[in-house]
């Protein structure tokens, strides 16, 4: 290592590293510029001042730590969020000052008081040829002594064994989860299951559903089942009532609704977010995740966005007591597509 001076740093001294090919008509490297002394190098008063500044910064750090403790011990939390905010602010600012005091202090110290001479060091070849030769010889000796080349029987059986041995480590992950089976094709809905409000679970009468209103619906009994979230993730439904004139049911689906009341799966056919937004005026359903838009008047066809399939419709009817019930399960799998959906 050589302290900087202009004689050092001539260009192109090694053949192993890049030297631009324009040597003849390129500028000579003038070497490091002369060192310019800083104020604190020349003026003892400036030096003293810098010293005091550094110490002051360290003291600010001490104050920061004290601020942290003040917040920690003297701001008791109660049930208001303001107290929490205040404590968080004091802990945070305390830590900030504690850290910044130290950090800025040290950097200031380094910049004003420590030597600022740039130093030159030379690079070395990453792989000198001699090392390569030595290493090659060592590797060959190792291979020779192990005899792996001379004994193909050993080599090949080891290879076979080593290829097979990791397989159990993969197979053992089989129990990460059950196989899908038919579970994605069925929901809790079935003939006669009542439509109930989400989340309370109270049943809904057809007469409760006025034109223009929308209900978030779960199947009756959902709140009692064990795997509630999994069932809910498939079974949630949106219930809306339109003027029957505005619905255009396709053949075979004429009686899937009841007097303008229709129920559609709330799980987006894109990647599964709940389609939670209903625009009364346009009769559009909007998924907030990626803005797929479904048109109620066209049996929830996709009219905009990344979803490719309409929302599945839940066939509904009214039971003897006037409550809305499902006539059957969904006629197709709900939610995002999957390979086996078919």
């Amino acid at each position: 290592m050589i302290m900087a001076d202009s004689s050092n740093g001539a260009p192109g001294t090694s053949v192993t590293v890049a030297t631009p090919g324009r040597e003849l008509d390129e500028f000579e490297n003038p070497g490091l510029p002369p060192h310019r002394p800083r104020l604190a190098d020349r003026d003892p008063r400036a030096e003293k001042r810098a010293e005091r500044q550094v110490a002051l910064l360290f003291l600010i750090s001490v104050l920061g730590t004290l601020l942290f403790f003040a917040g920690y011990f003297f701001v008791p939390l109660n049930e208001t969020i303001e107290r929490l905010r205040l404590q968080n602010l004091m802990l945070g600012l305390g830590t900030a000052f504690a850290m910044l005091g130290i950090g800025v202090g040290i950097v200031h110290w380094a910049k004003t008081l420590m030597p600022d001479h740039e130093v030159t060091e030379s690079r070395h070849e990453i792989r000198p040829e001699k090392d390569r030769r030595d290493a090659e010889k060592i590797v060959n000796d190792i291979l020779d002594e192990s005899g792996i080349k001379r004994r193909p029987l050993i080599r090949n059986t080891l290879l076979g064994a080593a290829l097979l041995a990791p397989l159990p480590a993969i197979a053992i992950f089989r129990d990460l989860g059950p196989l899908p089976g038919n579970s994605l094709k069925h929901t809790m809905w079935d003939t006669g299951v009542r439509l109930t409000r989400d989340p309370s679970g109270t049943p809904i009468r057809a007469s409760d559903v006025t034109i223009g209103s929308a209900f978030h619906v779960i199947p009756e009994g959902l709140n009692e089942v064990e795997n509630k979230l999994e069932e809910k993730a498939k079974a949630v439904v949106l219930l809306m009532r339109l003027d029957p004139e505005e619905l255009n049911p396709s053949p075979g689906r004429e009686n899937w609704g009841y007097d303008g009341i229709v129920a559609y799966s709330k799980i987006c056919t894109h990647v599964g977010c709940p389609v939670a937004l209903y625009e009364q005026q346009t009769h559009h359903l909007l998924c907030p995740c990626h803005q797929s838009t479904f048109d109620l008047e066209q049996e929830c066809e996709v009219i905009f966005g990344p979803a490719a399939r309409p929302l599945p419709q839940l066939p509904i009817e009214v039971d003897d007591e006037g409550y809305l019930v499902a006539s059957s399960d969904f006629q197709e799998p709900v939610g995002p597509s999957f390979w086996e959906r078919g």
Partner: protein
Amino acid sequence: MSSSTTTQTYVPKTRVGKVTDYVDSRVGGSGIVKEFGRKIFPDHWTFMFGEVALYTFVILLITGTFLTFFYDPSMAETHYNGSYLPLRGVEMSVAYASSLDISFDVRGGLFMRQLHHWAALLFAASVAVHMLRVFFTGAFRRPREFNWVVGCVLVILSLAAGFTGYSLPDDLLSGNGLRIIDGVMKAIPVVGTYLSFFLFGGEFPGTMIIGRLYVLHILLIPAVILLMIGIHLFMVVLHKHSQFPGPGRTNTNVVGYPVGPVYAAKAGGFFFIVFGILAAIAAAFTINPIWNYGPYDPSPVSAGTQPDWYIGWVDGALRLMPGTLGDNFDFEFMIPFPWGVNALSLNVLVPALVPAAIVFTLMFAWPWIEAWVTKDKREHHLLDRPRNAPARTGVGVAGIVFYCVLWAAASSDLIATHFLVSLNDVTYWLRALVFIGPVLAFMVTRRIALALQRKDREIALHGRETGRIVRLPHGEFIEVHEPVDDYKRYKLVSFDSPEVMVPKPDENGKISLLDKVHGRASRFFFEDRVAPVTPKELEASHNDHHGEIAGAKDRESIASH
């Protein structure tokens, strides 16, 4: 060491000396000090981003470990009973309840959560910016290609770390994020449904996912990141840091400050500064107020929410892809097989995989792509100023624009409501911009780089404009130019400026297809170039103060001819 047998045994005299000697003679610290104590590190403000990444990772380890003492990764149902009144009695997972407890009932817990989350954002950001620095300055060239690859792996790992962490509180927002992951997974042909069932331990959401993400988040991913950082830094020491060209700096030396004391003090101090700034942000700005979102439930969803910035671009891509075209075409294909019909959802697969595949493939392969174009096999320890590699810089900015358009798409609803425009129009525009934006960005950036190079030439030849107008005796007005000194000029003229390589025919007079493609690529990269000033040109300009310099004109082979 062999000499120790011949020299006198060292006897320490002071207390500290004795302790040091006791340890040193057992662990060989002297050798380490000899190797590293005065090692030289070049200094430049852009070298700081890697440091920020390292320091934020340390802060993540510290704050994350604190969080593990209180966080409980269980998806069992519980009724909340903590201090936050609005959620009292609400049914939720233990994981969410414990995250609320950390926020409201553990003193300093909220601060730690905020610090952890802000540090995570800064970590991903600094890793990305660090990578861009390496890209734009050409620091990925030989011999540093493998370290570039390690860096790319670190980028992916930091995304994974962020995403797994984001899901842990099990609030409504993160649950919806998982739901999207589940939906994307299920779109994968043949194995998708199985992957989803294996990841979630059954049907979504199941009761396993949080615990599994937890192990990934606090053990596996940090451990691999740590390993990668180790390899990364080892290679930095091995290669020695690159440096910008300038007076005294060559391809065979390193100019900078010694580790002890200056560099260590600056870098060490900087750790505390990063910590301090993050603490101040965590004190003042709330991030991820999970208590506002409520527990995960598959039914409700809050509109207008975004994922963290490093995941946002994938979400944006999902939004931009149309699911249907016109009335009769949709991107979900029903493929008949002998055993039945299978569904292929290109409307999900394409946006989820293609942009990421393009970005990451280009990222990993770039050092080799560029080396193939330039046929440059030399070692490079001197960096490029971005303007001196106009095509590369253009590609980099095009990549940034591509990313940003996708990221903006993840906020298309917010853009629409904020600027009172139709959501559909925003989406149409962004769809176009994804394709046009990067191309425009490339062209504009390359032009700007060339213009800056020309400005450098001007300054190197004629000096800086002073803004002082002087009238010459014969009446002409000129602006006085202040010549630059040798050191400043050297900075402006010392760079490589590769020229287009024209494919050469072989003995049979044929040019192979590969050579033709290479010729095209070379033209694409280097057709427009501004050559560095040569001493001859400078001399010519000194002899002829006003007016153009013929030599310079010739060398400036600006294309479009």
